[in-house]
């Protein structure tokens, strides 16, 4: 998420960033990619242990099981592998792509938990489907957060050091 957000900030606020920030950005991204690869590896093992502990192997062949495999293999194992390759080869483009893939995976996981697989045993007509007002409210909140973020970084020294305090390092 940090890599993805950082990439978007780089596109939108590149002119606001000072030399120190820009110089430290790439090594930071490679470090995050390495950490993300390890975390995703651990998460993959946790998911595997979850299936084993519940003895749910036979459910993997069902439609919901296949959807679970899509989530775990496509949005956990694949980003883990791509972060590893990106980190080894110092490939910034691959790491940024993988970060976007991971963010999609997080969104997919939350949708699976809260909407797609929620009350899965009930018929579709009895299941929870968010109304258009709930969707609009979510979009509104995300837009507000982005505007607040933009307001702060264009008016406060977030991407650069304040000229009055350049000499005063802690």
């Amino acid at each position, binding site marked *: 998420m940090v890599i993805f957000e950082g990439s978007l900030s780089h596109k939108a606020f590149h002119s606001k960033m000072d030399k120190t920030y820009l110089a430290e950005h790439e090594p930071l991204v490679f470090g995050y990619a*390495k950490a993300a*690869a*390890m975390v995703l*590896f*651990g998460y993959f*093992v946790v998911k*595997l*242990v979850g299936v*084993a*502990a*519940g*003895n749910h192997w036979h459910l993997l062949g069902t439609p919901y099981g296949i959807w679970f495999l899509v989530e775990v293999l496509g949005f956990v194992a694949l980003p883990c592998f791509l972060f*590893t390759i990106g*980190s*080894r*080869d110092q490939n910034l483009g691959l790491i940024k792509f993988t970060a976007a893939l991971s963010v999609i995976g997080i969104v997919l996981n939350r949708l699976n938990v809260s909407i797609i697989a929620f009350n899965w045993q009930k018929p579709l007509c009895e299941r929870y489907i968010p109304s258009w007002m709930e969707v609009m409210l979510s979009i509104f909140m995300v837009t507000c957060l982005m505007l607040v973020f933009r307001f702060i970084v264009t008016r406060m020294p977030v991407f650069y050091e304040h000229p009055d305090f350049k000499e005063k390092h802690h």
Partner: protein
Amino acid sequence: MEDMIYTLQDYMLHTESITYIIMGISLICVVGFWLFLTGTEED
């Protein structure tokens, strides 16, 4: 021949055995994964 599960003891023994085997293999794999991840780094 397929193993039948009749009691909770059988079930727990079956699932815990597989879980512990997976955890053991994962602990060995994580070392290899870390070495692969940091393989190209210079000292």
